[in-house]
Each structure stands twice: as C-alpha cells, then as structure tokens.
C-alpha cells in the first residue's frame, strides 16, 4: 500500500509560505524574478519531499504550484515554471525507469505512423543517467529507496531549469546582431530587460538608433533610455503620443512581453497594442524578445478587455487635481493584449519562432495534465 499523499515537508512549507506572501503582496516584481524564486522554492520542496512513487511527488509539486498560482494569478511565469519542473521530472522518471527516452521510437516511417503519432516530439531532455536505475516503487520494506534513487537526477533536472532561467538574457541576445542591421531605427516601449540586453548586445557590432517611448503612466521608458544611452547607443526619448508620427521612419519595433499565450498572442505593457497596430499600418516588422519561461498554456477568451491587471490610478490623475478625483473615473490598465496577427517573430532563448508555432512549443515544453494545476 502506498503511503497517504503527503504535503511538502515542514521546512519547505515555510519557504512556500514565504513566497506565497511575497507574491500576494507583489513584492516579487518582474516575471524572471518570480520564476527564479519559484524554482528555488521547488528545489527545496523536492529535496525534502518524502515520496515512494512518482505520483506522490507530482501531487506534492502540484499542490505547491496551485498555492503559488493562486497567490498571484496574474504572474503567469510562476505557473509556467512549475509546469516546466513537472515536465522535466516526468522526463527524468521515464528515462530512468524505462531506459529509453519516452518517444524516440525509430520505427519505419509510414504515413499511418505519422498520423497516429499524435503527440508531437517532446523536448528531448538528455537523460541524466545512462544506465537504468533500478527503481522500486512502493517498496514496503524500504519506502525511501525510490526517492533516494531518483532525487539526484531530479535535482539536476531542476538545476537545468534554474540555469536556463539565469542565462535567459544571454541566450536571447545571442543572435542579436543578425536581427539588427546598421543604421536602423528601432522603436521600443517601456523597460524590458530582455530587450535591453538584446539591444546592448547588438550594439557591440552594429551602430543603430533607438527611439524609446515613455510609456505612461509608469514612464518606464525613461530608465530604458538612460540605460541604453549610457551603453553608447544613440537614443531618442519621445512621448507616447508621437508613436504614429515617427513610425514612418522606424525600421523595426522591438518590444518585450509579460506572458505569451498559446494562440501566439501576448500580454505586454500597456501601449504595446498602439505601437504594434501603428507598425502594422506602416508595414514595419514587430519583434518580441522573451524568455521561454513566458510561454503560458492559456487562451485569452475575453481579450476585448485585455487589461490583465490594473495599477494605481493616482499616477494617471492624482489627488493634486482636487475635486476632479470625485467626479471622474480613472483607468490605469497595466497590460495590453496584443493578438498573434500583430507579432512577426518571438525571439526566445530557444530560438526564433513565429506566433503560429507557439502552440506546438507549449505542447513540447509542458505536459497536458499540467495545464490546470
């Protein structure tokens, strides 16, 4: 008999609770930081978990993931990281117990095989162990043998996820100079660290100009402009109202994303929809730089009101306006929904992808069971 499903151990409970409260209070700012903290917490959970078969471990992680996602449902990278870790864990388990990678069946390639294959090729996680570990599940004499055998492999897999997150900026910027040619004028919005590192990397070998839109009411564009200009890139800072006016001279629009949805659309900082639409009108290519951890198995059914989250209205109309504050409704949406038809390419740490293949990437990186945590 398997043991009853246990939650995470006491020590890791504490770290989970800490992260939950940080997420709820929005003390974790930025998708990458949220993902990093999630991986660290999951690593702790896995290292201290007691389980005797794979389902118990998966259940533990799913319960942790559910709590984290409920703490801050708008921060999609948390859920994505949990799904990624689960995917890796299942891969490792499958490799270890069956000896061969789950789906690399090199049978003769016939049409019927092709049609019947169903699941697309999964992202090949290189098996950590060459030899099959003898996994005895639910051993009544030695309940911990299973977890003892599997844990080192799992920790390495989680470390992989962590490494991928830590090197996201470098990998996205790897081919930056292939995407930007000399004397281009590039428009960007807000302060995306991925785009920032992308442009700085390209500046090593190309000379170009960047126009940064201020992006009210957070005015993050100011920091972006300062950071780019101090890296030696000639930068213009313009207010959002002039995006259409200058679009005729812009060669490329490069923006960052908050979360990329399964249909190829994305949530990005407010103002991105304006820039993308204006670029389409002028037939200017739109490039989105984002890490793979932002791919979310979500569909935006209610995209008309694309605002995912709202920020403080006083930065739009503050109390210094006096009596106006009572009589007027103020809206401060933080994100825009940009449809897949407005994006030309997603540049990720795993290569460049058009929006039409995002659904396949999501199928490959996450397991279907995990879409709902």
């Amino acid at each position, binding site marked *: 008999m398997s043991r009853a499903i246990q939650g995470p151990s006491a020590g890791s409970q504490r770290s989970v609770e800490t992260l939950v409260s940080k997420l709820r209070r929005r003390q974790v700012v930025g998708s990458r930081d949220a993902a990093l903290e999630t991986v660290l917490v999951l690593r702790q959970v896995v290292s201290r978990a007691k389980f005797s078969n794979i389902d118990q471990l998966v259940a533990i992680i799913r319960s942790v993931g559910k709590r984290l996602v409920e703490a801050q449902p708008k921060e999609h990278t948390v859920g994505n990281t949990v799904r990624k870790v689960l995917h890796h864990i299942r891969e490792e388990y499958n490799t270890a117990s069956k000896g061969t990678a789950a789906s690399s069946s090199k049978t003769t390639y016939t049409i019927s095989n092709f049609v019947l294959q169903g699941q697309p090729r999964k992202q090949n996680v290189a098996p950590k162990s060459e030899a099959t570990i003898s996994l005895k599940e639910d051993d009544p004499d030695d309940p911990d043998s299973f977890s003892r055998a599997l844990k080192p492999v799992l920790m390495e897999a989680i470390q992989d996820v962590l490494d991928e997150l830590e090197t996201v900026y470098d990998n996205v910027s790897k081919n930056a100079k292939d995407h930007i040619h000399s*004397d281009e004028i590039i428009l960007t919005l807000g302060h995306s660290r991925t785009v920032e590192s992308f442009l700085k990397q390209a500046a090593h070998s190309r*000379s170009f*100009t960047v126009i940064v839109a201020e*992006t*009210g*009411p957070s*005015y993050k564009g*100011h*920091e972006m*402009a*300062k950071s*780019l*200009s*101090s890296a*030696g*890139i*000639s*930068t*213009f*800072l*313009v*207010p*959002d*109202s*002039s*995006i*259409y*006016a*200058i679009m*005729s*001279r812009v060669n490329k629009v490069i923006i960052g994303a908050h979360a990329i949805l399964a249909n190829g659309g994305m949530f990005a*900082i*407010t*103002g991105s*929809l*304006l820039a993308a*639409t*204006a670029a389409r*009108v002028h037939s200017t290519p739109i490039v989105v730089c984002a890490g793979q951890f932002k791919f979310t198995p979500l569909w935006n059914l209610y995209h*008309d*009101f*694309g*605002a995912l989250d709202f920020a403080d209205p*006083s*930065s*739009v*109309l*503050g109390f*210094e*306006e006096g009596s*106006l504050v009572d*009589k*007027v*409704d*103020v*809206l*401060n*949406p933080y994100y*825009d*929904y940009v449809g897949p038809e407005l994006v030309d390419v997603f540049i990720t740490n795993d290569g460049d992808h058009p929006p039409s293949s995002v659904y396949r990437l999501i199928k490959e990186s996450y397991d279907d069971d995990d879409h709902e945590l």
Partner: protein
Amino acid sequence: MAPAPTLPVHPPNGPTAALTHPSAPPPQRSQKQMTKAERRELQESQRAAKAAAKAGAAPNGGQSKQPPKAAPAPLAATPRRQGKPSEATPKVPLTPGAKGRDTKGAPPMAEGDPLNARSLRIFSHFGLPKPVSVAKGDIHPTILRLALQFSNFKITGANARCIATLIAFKTVIQEYVTPPNNTLSRHLMTHLNPQISHLVAARPMSVTMGNAIRQLKLEISRTDIDLPEQDAKNALCQKIDNYIRDRIIIADQVIEETAAKKIKDGDVILTFARSSVVQKVLLGAMEEGRQFSVIVVDSRPMLEGKRLLSVLSSAGIQCTYILLPALGSVISEVSLVLVGAHSIHANGAVYARAGTALVAMMAKQHSVAVVVCCETYKYSDTVQLDSFTKNELAPTADSFSSFPLVKSRDALLTQNQINLEILNPLYDLTPPTSITAVVTEVGVIPPNSISSIPVALGRLL
C-alpha cells in the same frame, strides 16, 4: 515660467564674418601666414570661447543680430562640428552635412564623433523652439505680451491663438499712425510685418493665424485711399471682428449643432486632448438633454485633457480619464470618436495634436466612426504626406511640470546624457483613411472631398 533654455549664439560661418567681428582677439601668427583651414579653426575656437562667455549673460541680445542665412557657407575641411542653433525657421530645411545639428540647449558638443552627429541629425529639420528675443524695431507691448504667452504655452490651440492674435492686431492698428507721405494701405503692412515675425519667433505660426493674417493683408490692401485714417482703422477693426465672428464663433455654433446630432443617448464618446470645438459640441449636446458619457484620452507633453475634463465634469457629464497607452483597453466600448484639428489639408489629412493619429487608427480598426470637427478657415491647400514635413517640438521635459508627483524630477534630468535626446513633437498627421467625416460649417464632408471646401465657400481662402 522661463522661456526655452538659451542657446549659445554663433555668428554665421565664413571667414568674412569673423574678420568683421569687432572683438576677435588677435591671432598668434599673422593671418596671412596661416593656411585657410588653420584660420578657420582659429575662428571657430574663438567663436566657441565667446559663445561660452556669452551663454552666461543675457542671451536675448545676440539672436536678433544674426539674420537667417538661407544658403549656409560651405564648411571648411575640418570635420569638427559645433552645435549650432538652427537659424532658419522650421520650414527651411537644413542641408545635410552643413551646419551641424541642433543642440536643444545642451552645451555645444564640438568634438562629437561623426557617428553620433549623424544619427541625431535625423530630426534636425524640426528646428528648435527659439527664445523670445528683443527684436529689431519697436514691437508693440501687446504683441510682446502675446509672444511671451505663446512661448510659455499659456495660450494654446489653433482657435485661441488666432483670436488672440487678431485682437492684438486690432490694438496695434488702432494705435498706428500713418507717417507723412505714406498711405495706410501700403505702410500698415510694413508696420505689421516685424510684429508678425516676432510672434513667429516665439512659436511657429499656426495655419489659422496664417490664414487670418493673409485675409487681413488682403483687406488692408483693399482699403480705400481716400478714406480718412481713423475711418480706415475702424473699418479694418470691424473687418477683423467680422472675421472672428463669421469664421470662428458662428462656424463653431453650426458645427456644434451638426455634430451634436450625431450623439445619441447612451453613447460613449471618446475625445483626445482638448479641442475647443469638441468641448462646445459636448456641452451643447449636454444642454439638449442627451445622455452620454465621455472618455477623455490624454498624453504628455501637454496633458491638455485635464482642462477639458474639469470643464466637462463641472457641467455634469460622466467622464472617464485615461492616458493614451490605455486606449487599447477601452476602445471596444466606444461608439464615436470626436477630435479637433489644427488644420486640414487638401488630400483630407488632418494635422492635429500628436496622438490624434493613434486614436483615429485604433478607432478605425474597431470600426468606430472618427469625426473631426473643424472650421473651414483651418483649411490649408498644401498636401502633407507625413508628420515630419512640418512639425513643432515642445521644449524639453524640464520646462513642463506635467509629470505626476509620484515621479521624482531628478529621474527626468537627462540633459547630461551624451547619446540621449528628447523629442516632443507637438503635432502629427492623421491620414485620410483613418477619418470617417469632417464636420465643418458648410457641411459634413468625407475626407476625400476636403479639397472642395474653397469651392463650397464660394471664395478663395
């Protein structure tokens, strides 16, 4: 408020100017012994030193002495570029490779690398907002005050500026005395011209001001020579009043009635920044008892929407206020977009406050009607193809206290960054494809028939 930051003053390029410069210090070697290039280098370094000294003192005196040179003298062989203010008005484009680039108030970057200078030259033809100077000739105090109000953006808006200009001219005309051996119809124009140039130096002329002044000049030239002076002046003032009344006030009333008919009960009207005509339309519709709500979209640098917001909400209209980037979230709720214009062009394009083009584009994408409310005197028979041909830059961020208090002002001090420039175009061009109709006092016109406005008016504009 102080006017735009002062610019270092440079006399025009060329060896002749330097030689006639009264206070050039004597060169180390005699001028004949130095080569031409070396002489020029020396002149430029002396000029830079003088400019640095002058920049500390009152800047106004120097500007007027330099008449704008339409054909800049060819640069010497030295590739070194000094920052120069663009002496030409925004309408005279700087030839590339000539006088270097605009400095926008930053200290002259004499040793800027050519790479840097080239990229920042992209928008150099926009020209700089110039400080109001004490011009040649005596400028009427009303005009002086008006110019100051223009340059400090105390009076903004095409209609407001035009009315203010015409009223100021009425005062000037009344106080004008024809000198002996001159006729009013001929001399008044030469008297008014420096006043007009002073206003243009404060802020580039709007199309409305241009059309009004052209009409005024026509009236002046038509003045009967035999009329006694006071009668002629009274007649001119009367003509000015008639112009304001017919082309602006009554036109606005007709537009208000026509456009208010487009507003139905339960509508959500979207408007951008502040147009005096749209304000009248909305207030008029409110008085007629229609039930509607308004979304006011606003944007830096001017943030004029707040004024409209306070007027509308005091009148009891339910308003929502958003900044321009948030437009994507609300556009699906909107039934009608009403915007004003600075001027309309023969091809149907609308030249309006920067951001109008974005609003019109988004509305068109969501099949929302875009209605431009515009009097016929704003018609300009030029055809503009993009927002670059003619535009105006606002002074940089520090002069505008339009940031919300949550942001520290220090974060905005980007003057000292070498590679960073701040551009604040004030206008943009909405192409005719984004516009559904233009409401004028002669009717509701689709954008491709705008060129028939002069015909509809029955007279030349």
